[in-house]
């Protein structure tokens, strides 16, 4: 389905009912992007992700801000030992309200959310994800518009029904586990108010590869983004028979980008690259659901770097500050953040953004 070409990212007229979802670092990034650009979206899906700016919950974790953000992300935002050491929701809501360079938080009121945490998740645990639900409620999202799933015995993963995926309770790459439902379908159904058609049997549209660097070209060394990204154009949208509902942005998690390479003893193990490839794109069910409902899909891709400019060996999205120009004044959460800005530009090109948005 994916040919060898690299094409310019096309533009389609849409109804601009855009949305976003992600797993793990992609879920944390989903929340950063969703809050920063709340005027763009109708909803979001968060699989194993914490609240906005969770890496800044406890400044006193370390004497310096960069180290504090790292320790916060690891031990408060991802693996808090108890509910009382999970992200402080009141503090983060106050922080969000005073954050410059983001859309008005009032935009969130009418939006719909899917939030998931597996009972066996050892990477981002349930204490952490429960605070995401509380965070959105405090920001005015109607509790009836939040589908919070916390009773599935799943490890850290997006859930599919593919026979070759890992057992449901595993916490291991590629973090795609086999369950009894297809999670991407549940996410899209919840965001679009259960008005979507069942997924198509086959994705008959076009999966395209485009040069992602033109969208982060102003800060290539900080972005830690891969050279290419992907988009799926449903067949009826491609053929101009139907107008797309909008664009759904799919954010992969750590170690799930197409060019993820494991670092062994500090060296990229390019001879033994994991065979994950594009599995998060093509096997998680997003394309079939998008095909049946004329939802364009955008798959931005982060890359892995492990040097002193960017310490991101696992190819994670930046939700704690590694891509910031000034590590002592991180801006990973605002519209100016290099990754958020790049994704925004991709979305604007692919499906347009509501009037008035620059």
């Amino acid at each position: 389905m994916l040919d060898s070409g690299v094409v310019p990212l096309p533009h389609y007229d849409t109804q601009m009912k855009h949305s976003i979802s992600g797993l793990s670092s992609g879920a944390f990034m989903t929340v950063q992007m969703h809050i920063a650009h709340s005027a763009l979206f109708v909803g979001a899906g968060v699989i194993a992700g914490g609240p906005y700016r969770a890496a800044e919950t406890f400044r006193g974790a370390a004497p310096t801000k960069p180290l504090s953000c790292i320790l916060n992300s690891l031990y408060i935002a991802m693996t808090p030992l108890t509910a009382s050491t999970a992200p402080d929701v009141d503090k983060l809501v106050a922080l969000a309200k005073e954050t410059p360079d983001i859309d008005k938080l009032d935009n969130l009121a009418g939006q719909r959310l899917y939030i998931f945490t597996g009972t066996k998740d050892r990477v981002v645990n349930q204490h952490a994800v429960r605070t995401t639900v509380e965070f959105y409620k405090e920001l005015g999202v109607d509790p009836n518009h939040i589908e919070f799933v916390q009773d599935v015995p799943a490890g850290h993963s997006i859930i599919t029904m593919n026979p070759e995926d890992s057992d449901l309770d595993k916490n291991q790459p590629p973090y795609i586990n086999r369950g009894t439902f297809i999670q991407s379908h549940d996410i899209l159904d919840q965001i679009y108010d259960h008005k979507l058609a069942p997924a198509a049997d086959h994705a008959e549209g076009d999966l395209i590869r485009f040069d992602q660097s033109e969208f982060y070209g102003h800060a290539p060394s900080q972005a830690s983004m891969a050279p290419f990204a992907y988009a799926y154009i449903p067949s009826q949208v491609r053929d101009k028979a139907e107008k797309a509902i909008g664009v759904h942005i799919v954010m992969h998690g750590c170690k799930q980008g197409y060019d993820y390479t494991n670092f062994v003893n500090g060296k990229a193990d390019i001879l033994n690259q994991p065979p994950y490839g594009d599995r998060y794109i093509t096997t998680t069910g997003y394309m079939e659901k998008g095909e049946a409902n004329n939802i364009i899909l955008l798959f931005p891709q982060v890359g892995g770097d492990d040097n002193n400019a960017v310490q991101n060996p696992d190819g994670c999205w930046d939700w704690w500050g590694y891509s910031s120009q000034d590590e002592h004044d991180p801006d990973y959460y605002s519209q100016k953040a290099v990754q958020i800005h790049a994704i925004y530009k991709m979305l604007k090109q692919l499906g347009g953004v509501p009037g008035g948005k620059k």
Partner: protein
Amino acid sequence: MKNQHIALAAAQVQSTQVQRCSTMVQDTVKLAMTQPDPGTFAEAAELARATTEQAIGLQKQWAQDWANWMAYASTISGADTIPKIADRSSNIVLQAQAQMANQVTQMSELVDNAMVSYNFWVAQKIGKD
């Protein structure tokens, strides 16, 4: 930290660790002076229990890892060529090394987690940002 000698970097990290310990002790004293209520003691106990639970989980995982290593090590008797014997002998040592390094990392992470979590919890109790 950029381009610094490894020893200097390690010294800085250790120095930071000492500062964090010092802060932890000072904040704990402050908390003790506030005459904590029963709820505070319950939360402290929960934090200790969660930390212990994680340590036990790690020990179980390590026992399983070493059992797997033993199983691999026992395959050396089936090696039928000199290169295969050399390969498996080397693998046995490398796997043990990697496993030990991994266990040290995991234990360090748990200690770090406990320290950050405790500091955060005490800071909240004494109303410190």
